[in-house]
């Protein structure tokens, strides 16, 4: 496809404009996060930072909660992801490759949970967790999301496409069913595991309303909660607040830089598998 020179230039102009608009808030974040407390008090707006300092980060970490919250988020996100990868693929395997009474009905029932908006579950979920004694623990953030219907659905779709003959081969060699899952299904499902893992981790890492309702003790706060509280903990200290934003955004952006291809593929495919 040939393009005229002017079209090509237009393309780059538009790309630059779009990228600049999308990047503007990040630019602000970085410029502000490197500004000293004293320079905040200087009247007028500076669009750049003359004497960058890491003081806002020192102040932020002195508050003490960021480090703890990051650990909490990693713990919750990690366990949720590992659990999802196991339970969802296992169930997906059963739904895709096993035949048993009630299979399709159960699958449909499972799928129907995806239609229930989270907002409906806020109040009763809270009461249930209270009765279970799960409030102010990480359990409600981990256990239910380890076996979400979406993960099972995605797994079933993917595993269905694995040729039956491969499974037969393994069975002929006398492999037990769980071994088939472990040695045939899992190795062949790497793209699925990547997709599911990335989506689950991002979902957990960025979850806000769940921790907001469930966690009471600030020591257990996850990163989004601590970020949301920065306005109150460092009132008027825009630089420290932005340092917090940098802390919460940078790790995932770096992950994105490394796994760009997989993440884009995961998200692009997340809803597009033929049902």
């Amino acid at each position: 496809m040939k393009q005229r020179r002017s079209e090509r230039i237009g393309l780059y102009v538009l790309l630059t404009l779009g990228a600049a608009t999308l990047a503007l808030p990040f630019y602000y974040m970085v410029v502000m996060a490197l500004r000293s407390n004293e320079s905040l008090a200087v009247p007028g707006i500076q669009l750049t930072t003359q004497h960058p300092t890491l003081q806002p980060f020192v102040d932020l970490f002195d508050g003490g909660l960021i480090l703890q919250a990051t650990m909490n988020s990693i713990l919750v996100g990690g366990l949720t992801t590992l659990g999802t990868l196991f339970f969802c693929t296992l169930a997906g395997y059963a739904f895709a490759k096993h035949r048993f009474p009630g299979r399709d009905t159960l699958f449909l029932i499972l799928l129907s949970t995806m239609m229930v908006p989270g907002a409906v579950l806020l109040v009763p979920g809270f009461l249930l967790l209270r009765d279970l004694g799960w409030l102010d623990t990480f359990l409600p953030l981990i256990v239910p999301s380890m076996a979400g219907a979406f993960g099972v659905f995605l797994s079933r779709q993917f595993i269905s496409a694995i040729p039956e003959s491969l499974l037969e081969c393994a069975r002929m060699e006398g492999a037990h069913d769980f071994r088939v899952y472990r040695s045939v299904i899992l190795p062949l499902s790497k793209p699925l595991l990547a997709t599911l893992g990335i989506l689950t981790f991002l979902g957990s890492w960025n979850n806000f309303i769940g921790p907001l309702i469930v966690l009471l003790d600030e020591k257990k706060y996850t990163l989004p909660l601590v970020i949301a509280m920065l306005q109150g903990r460092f009132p008027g200290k825009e630089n420290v607040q932005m340092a917090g934003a940098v802390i919460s955004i940078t790790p995932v952006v770096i992950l994105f830089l490394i796994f760009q291809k997989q993440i884009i593929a995961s998200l692009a495919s997340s809803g597009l598998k033929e049902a």
Partner: protein
Amino acid sequence: MRRVLLLLATSYLLATASLAQTLRFWAVTGSADDSTMYKEIGADFEKKTGIKVDVSPLAWGNFESKYFTAMAAGMPPDAGATNLGGPFNYGTVGGLVDLRGTFPAESKELESKLNPAMLPMFSVGKKLYGIPTDVGILVLVYRKDIFERLGIKPPATWNELNATIAKLEANHYRYYYNWTLGAQWALNMYTMPYGVSGIEVDASGKTKLNWNEPNYQKGVLQALNLWYMHDSPGKDLGSRAIGLFASDKPGEGMPLIIDLFSMDGQIRKLAPQIDGKWGVVAWPTAETGKPFHVMGGITYVVFRKSKHQREAFEWVKYLSSQEVQEKIFLNRYRRKADPGFTIPAITSFWNAEGANFWKREELKPVQELKNVVAEVYKSLGTTPQVQGSTEVTKLESNMLDSMKTWIDDTIAGLATKQGTTRSELMSAFGRGEFAADRASLYAETAAKLKENYASLLPKAEQLLSEAEGRQARRTSTVLGHLDEFEKASSVLTLLERALVVAAILVVGAVAFKPKLRKHALSYLYIAFPVLVAAVFVFLPALTALYLSFTEYHPVLPLSTAQWTGISNYRESIQSGEIGSSLAKSLYYVLGTLPIGIALALGCALLLNARPRGEHVWRFLFFSPLVTSAISVALIFSQLFLGTKDGWLNTILAKLHLTTEPIAFLTSEHTFLKCVMILAIWHGIAFTSVVFLAGLQQIPASLFEAAHLDGAPPWVRLKKIVLPGIRPQMLFVTTLGVIGSFQVFETIFLLANKSADAGARFGPNDSGLTTVPLIFHQGFESLEMGKSSANAYILFAIILTLTAIQIKFFQPEGSQA
């Protein structure tokens, strides 16, 4: 891997277990340094008594729902520091220890250390639920040098204050109004000098709303005048406000700060160059009124469910001692904190007893402020709290927000009429020009206020009487028999039992029916997801359905839930609350989705043209994808500062796109639009990723053929692109609608809810879309029944919309 898991699990268990045997103290402080301070005091307390104190800070924005959540969960801390309304609000649902009843002698001794006029707010009948500390009052901080230069004396009355402001504005100076700007609870500071408060309880215990009283409205008008009818740069400027206070330049400087006793430390820290050039005076009195000072502040409470009530009360007593209050004062003073000047509630600080303390050399710079506070302290007082006032005050808060928007619009109209800018107009008003405009602004504002109060009153009275009814039932039947209610089984426990029985039956069937036993392994594989679905989706969904037909306060046991039939649904629809929330949600969807999709399609087409350095472009375009809505909203909350001191406003002005700053987040016209801009910005990445994947599946030959045919771009778009990405379109719109209807965190953050006590979901609740409404009712006003009813209405609507969309996109498309 296994070892890592084990390590994680043990460290988690250790982390949760290590806190078991200590006194848990939650402190609403906001600042990180304050919690360090409390920790130090806790260490001293441990040395003295052997009782260990574990301090957890709470943010001003959500401390109330945290306390309620903890009480509802039956796991509150032992003691807490909360707002002034806390003792009443938590005490009347059985959450707190009545200090007078439980520790009569000691409570009496503690009370004797306080100014008795302070206590009514924390008592219900003979019960006392809280002990005040850290008082907040209004003062004026002013630049002595600039005032002298302009020939103004610091004002002692409201007329003088208004004249002072006029003089400042005539000389192109501004003034700053910090944390009580627009705060409904601060209205008492303006109306009590006229002897009227908004809600009163008379001697017989009957509540009365004084909104239509002329004297009440007179006070409110003075508040509106100071808050909104000048060129004040708004609140929460933080350090920047200090910079402007220190500036001498007309057009920039703000030589007067109202209500900033708390900023004195920051001024000493950040603007030492003006040391000695500024002073403090007390909040002026109204001409016709009496001197009256209403306190803001903090109270200490002890929780009923605490297993260490006695120790917790010891801790509260310790905190309220002269010794510890001195420590608190000096700690904040030395680090020039915000507030750097604590006002302890105990009398001994302010009478002869405290003289020694104030003799300290280091306290010399604040003698003036100390004298002002000591004078004000004598007339500090509170009024009793009124049941049901929370929702009524919310009505008034929202009305004040809408007055702000109305005043802003009116002033903008006047400025346009005179062909000038807002700040120029204010300056002209200050010089006495356009007197007719100014008079009409004041007259119209008074008329508008009167009209608003009159129209809100019936609704408010109804809310009050409903609350009274609820409270009557609670005090007469529930609170007296809490133990019995706690033991009684509830619908939820019945449902839980039913679930256990069902699980046993299923396991039994699989185990004993040979036909099913054959497949036991399959059932085992799917058991966990099915169980999770049953326990965490179906069970709560059923509970919500049940709750939607009841009235239930979560701090009380579920067995106290009262069946009310369809009245939650009926009230929600009749009062229009769900209607207006859904309308806002719909506006949000219609405003974000089409624009978001169009822009994202544009981005996807640009990237699909395979520019050089494709990966870099993709990275730039797609990085918002992974960022959390909360962090992004935090950034935008600063970009959107709604005065000319804001970043985005500065850029817009520099590009000559605007002449007046846009009041982004503080006007009800623009708040939700800002949330939508954020949503579009944040959503473009995901949508373009999906579109790009679709575009790449369209055979290049199709484009080439079209190119050869000379088909113009829009024809290519219509004939090739749109049909080619039909499945993606379905996916993006369906998900977009569902997601947009459930928007929550960005609104939560942009409304400053984590930092501001009493913040609504945007000015005049303009961001109260559906999920914020459900959250507010469930976790802020604690009406679990209403919240559940609205959640079910939302559920029905989302289901319908999804069905319509699938039908709309289905006929020609694939089987997606």
